[in-house]
């Protein structure tokens, strides 16, 4: 829009209307809010595979189709039954007798015409045998109530191909979600706020700015408009001079610090900047050293074994390490929170921080160029946006090292499980975890879920799972089964492996949330097991 348009009478503001897509996703697409344009683009390029066209699968897909996932495939060789119609919102009475895969896909697609979907009426075992490569063409694989055997085969395949896999189970009001991730390196973890004022380690330009202000020589008006950052840095400087360079340590010293600071207030002048300095003083007590979790990244094997095949993330971490070794701090994020001062000073201070951030990014980039040069890696894979975002979020980076379902199956974490279950506990997510394992053992033997039977056979199923209970508990916990496990097991058997609409809705919400986090590579996903107890309306995250 040029000036002429702006000022001419023909100016049509409606030309500015965001396009259809922007308006549809209006509420989720806000900058720095949910997942922004980069996340939306990742979502739109994603292809997911879902095994079983159940109510839970449909509920999960619904929450991926609505925000605009690129493509989804439902693989299922079953036909729609009356029971399916009863609990799956994405089937209709006319669907009975037709393939579940194509029917659910057809109805899911009605919600969003920019999403593509495909129903495959195929048996997953068969596809595994004939074309295993088929499963590696997806951004994520999602399972619901699949047999242990199939779960293990698919998770092995996903693990060796570095694909995220989500395995969901439901039975009555109990459910679980196992998230099997390849190494996940997250830059934008969406911290609450990115604030780095450098009070304790002011950089050169900031120091100069602070020194240029003399608290004693300015007018009352100017004094009331000195940014609290300046007040704090001056005060901290003085403090360190009289305390061998140490920061205020304990509560007494911190109080003393605040008291001295207050003595600089001008009498009879309403000084909001000093109020801010008081409330923000805690920031002055922080060291500005390299955060613990970043220091940990520097020790990571991926950094030691850096090679030309390493991901861009690890090259960036390598550069960050050089930077922080050099300066003792991380690159500045360039943000300045709102504070009480006049506009001119605010803009000036903002410019100082922004320029610092820009310099730091430039330096990080030149370090990076030096490093990748040794590995003959091209700078082209590092956009300026990427380097900038990395520098800005460097204090909040997160790496998740996944673990495979196969390993969990062959060598369960007995110590963790056993300490998570005690006779004194009346409830325990670990007990539900064990109950799911027992239920799996039953299903392997009898080829159906325990409790999924005629009423008169129910007691028989309970007896059968109880015999498994003893075996499994001894193996996992090294002790006799406790009441908390048998209670959980009974509830699970009562569920009979069912897919209740409300459990499906809840789990569908929870699972799709995690899938979106992984696909957009933003926020920190569940690592790695979530137990859902809808009777008590709680979830627990376990690391298995």
């Amino acid at each position, binding site marked *: 829009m040029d000036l002429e348009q702006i000022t001419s009478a023909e100016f049509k503001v409606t030309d500015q209307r965001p396009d259809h897509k922007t308006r549809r996703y209006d509420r989720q697409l806000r900058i720095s809010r949910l997942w922004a344009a980069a996340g939306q683009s990742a979502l739109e390029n994603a292809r997911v595979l879902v095994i079983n066209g159940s109510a839970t699968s449909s509920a999960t897909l619904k929450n991926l189709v*609505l925000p605009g996932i690129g493509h989804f495939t439902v693989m299922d060789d079953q036909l729609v039954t009356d029971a399916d119609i009863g609990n799956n919102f994405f089937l209709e009475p006319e669907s009975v007798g037709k393939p579940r895969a194509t029917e659910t896909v057809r109805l899911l697609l009605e919600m969003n015409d920019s999403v593509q979907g495909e129903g495959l009426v195929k048996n997953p075992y068969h596809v595994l045998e004939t074309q295993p490569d088929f499963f590696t063409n997806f951004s994520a694989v999602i399972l619901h109530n699949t047999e242990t055997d199939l779960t293990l085969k698919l998770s092995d395949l996903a693990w060796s191909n570095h694909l995220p896999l989500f395995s969901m189970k439901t039975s009555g009001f109990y459910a679980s979600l196992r998230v099997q991730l390849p190494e996940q390196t997250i830059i934008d973890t969406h911290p609450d706020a990115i604030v780095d004022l450098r009070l304790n380690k002011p950089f050169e330009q900031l120091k100069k700015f602070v020194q240029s202000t003399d608290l004693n020589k300015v007018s009352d008006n100017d004094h009331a408009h000195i940014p609290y950052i300046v007040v704090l840095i001056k005060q901290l400087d003085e403090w360190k001079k009289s305390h061998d360079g140490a920061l205020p340590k304990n509560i007494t010293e911190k109080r003393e610090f605040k008291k001295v600071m207050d003595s600089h207030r001008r009498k009879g002048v309403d000084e909001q900047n000093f109020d801010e300095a008081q409330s923000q003083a805690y920031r002055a007590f922080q060291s500005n050293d390299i955060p613990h979790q970043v220091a940990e990244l520097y020790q990571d094997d991926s950094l030691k074994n850096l090679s030309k095949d390493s991901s861009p993330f690890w090259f960036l971490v390598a550069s960050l390490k050089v930077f922080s070794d050099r300066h003792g701090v991380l690159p500045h994020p360039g943000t300045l929170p709102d504070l009480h001062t006049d506009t*001119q000073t605010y803009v000036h201070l903002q410019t100082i921080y922004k320029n610092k951030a820009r310099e730091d990014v430039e330096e990080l980039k030149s370090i990076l160029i030096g490093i990748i040069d040794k590995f003959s890696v091209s700078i082209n894979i590092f956009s300026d946006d990427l380097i*900038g975002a990395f520098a800005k979020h460097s204090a909040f980076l997160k790496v998740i090292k996944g673990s495979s379902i196969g390993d969990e199956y062959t060598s369960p974490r007995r110590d963790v499980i056993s300490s998570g279950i005690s006779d004194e506990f009346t409830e325990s997510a670990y007990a539900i975890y064990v109950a799911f394992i027992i239920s799996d053992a039953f299903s392997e033997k009898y080829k159906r879920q325990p409790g999924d039977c005629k009423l008169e056979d129910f007691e028989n199923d309970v007896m059968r799972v109880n015999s498994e209970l003893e075996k499994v508990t001894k193996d996992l916990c090294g002790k006799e089964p406790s009441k908390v496990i048998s209670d959980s097991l009974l509830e699970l058997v009562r569920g*009979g492996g069912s897919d209740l609409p409300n459990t499906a809705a809840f789990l569908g919400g929870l699972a799709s*949330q*995690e899938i979106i986090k992984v696909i957009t590579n933003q926020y*920190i996903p569940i690592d790695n097991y979530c137990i859902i107890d809808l009777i008590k309306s709680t979830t627990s995250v376990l690391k298995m």
Partner: protein
Amino acid sequence: MSTATTSANTHPTTHAISTVLGTESYKSINSSKILIVGAGGIGCELLKNVILSGFTDVHIIDLDSIDLSNLNRQFLFQARHIKRSKAVVAKETASTFNPNALITPHQANVKETHYNVSWFAQFDVVLGALDNLDARRHVNKMCLAADTPLIESGTTGYSGNVQVIIKDKFECYDCQVKPTPKTYPVCTIRSTPSAPIHTIVWSKSYLLPHVFGEAEDEGELDRAELDGENGDEIKTLREEQGSFNKIREAVKSDGGPRVLFDKIFNRDVRRLLQMEDMWKTRTPPTPLEFDEASTSTAHPTSSGASKGEGDSATENTAESAIADQRKLTLADNVGLFLDATARLAQRSSNTTHPIEFDKDDRDTLEFVAAASNLRSIVYGIPTKTLFEVKEMAGNIIPAIATTNAIIAGVQTMKAINVLTRQMELCKPSVYLGSQLIAAPFETPNAGCTTCRDVYLTLPVKAEEVRLSEFIDALRSRVAVYADPSRELAVFERERLLYDPDFDENLDKTLMQLGCGENTFITLVDEDGEVENVTVVLAMPGEEKIALPHSDSIKQPAKKEKKLAPVAENSRKRGRDDDANDDSTNTQTYTENAQGVVSIVDSSDDEGPPPAKKMHTDGPITLDDSDDEGAEKGAEKDINHAANHTDNHTANQSPPSNDKVISLDD
């Protein structure tokens, strides 16, 4: 859950759930009648869940029509439904899941008077799926008065919460002071803004209504003056206000937008500048000269970029492609202002209806965005993009399908728990991005201004019953009021109708006092020894007052501690003789929990009677540095739920014994 499996039900929809729940529990769901308030993101999920779970008698109420931006999460609606009623389409779509279920849609505002206490009382449980504080408080109060369990919920982005509210058992929505409404002193908005939200509030709640909306309220400045705000400043603002009356007509003529521009961004600013005292400790505003401004391509200070510095590469993210997120230059804003004003003027000439702000009404949004940006430029405040203004002014919170599904799933479980009387499972739930947590039970806050009242629905012929008769009738039935030496004060919401020093109204009928069906009248013990009684006037029958037997009235409990003296001051608010009372500047610019900005005059606010108003009274200070406040409000709400104990303010009285004192003792 608690009972063992039972006989199979042949209906496939309900077979599995009745097996898991047990027949008895399943029956209580199957035979219940419930209400869902709101057919938005959560409401759609709820309706689907309850119908699939075996509920068969469901009412759903929502005033809104379907908009394109709803489709990313409100899955009962499709593009072909746009502009149709949410409640009606939700019913149509959900009915197909279970043809045996009866769904009754209401396209209406739940605050309408015919949705009265007895209407709420017909439901076994009410599920709240609302998006604003005002409606939430209303539904909370109605459910308390009707003694109907309410399951309240809310989401924002990746967080959400669910709370079961049952009168006298669990705390109610008002038991904890909500972090907002945030209020802005009149003069901050009118003459000394210092943050973007101040200029947005000004454009939306002051400028737009003055030029195109409902005629203004002079009272605002009167009260500000009484409150001791700068007298000269008020005088200047009054002159400014006077000239608006001429502008309303002028703006409709050719060149009208330019006239408005010159007035508000030049002449009014110059007038304020003459108040030299005001600018001794503040940066003075800079009036805009039209010719200069309309050709200036400079990017004014905006929150993202600094003056003349240019954006750094890292900020040029893909979003800049989206037009509404573009930073507008000064000239852009001028152009947009003239154009939007012309469009609104055109609309205003064609109708007598006042134009109100609506975030989805492009004309009003652009008018507010351009005007607030120009005012920000005048005051050297960072400007905002159209998207940002829409968000800050329009109560927009990020909403996604995933969180709604999670929260609605929990809410449905709580409904089942309430109907099957498993109260130990009704703990408040908080979802924070990946975990669902059961928060501890909270009993009602003894200082709560809403749920500690004893509610009593009384059929009364308002045109016949005098206030004195009304009071006498209650004294005859409420045991602790029987002693004539117990002095009572009577309020209609905030308004004082009677106290021992103010008896002019005693001979007037309730009708003459503006009280009729659905009016809430509260009786307050002057000594603060017993809980208040709130009488809800109901449609009269044969009798003037259909008084129930005192045995059937729940009696107010005795309080342990007297009310704090704060109450004494504010209670005088409704009096005729309070003109000199300087504690009553009650008009403020208010924002609700999710950032809706509106002017609230607390003298006709729906808040609780001031005698009880201890922790909500008085202006809430604004942290000027927090211009994100509007957006963060809803999140605070969640944190608030998570950090329960921090929010009970010190000046509330300690918990009272919930014992009922009756006449027979």
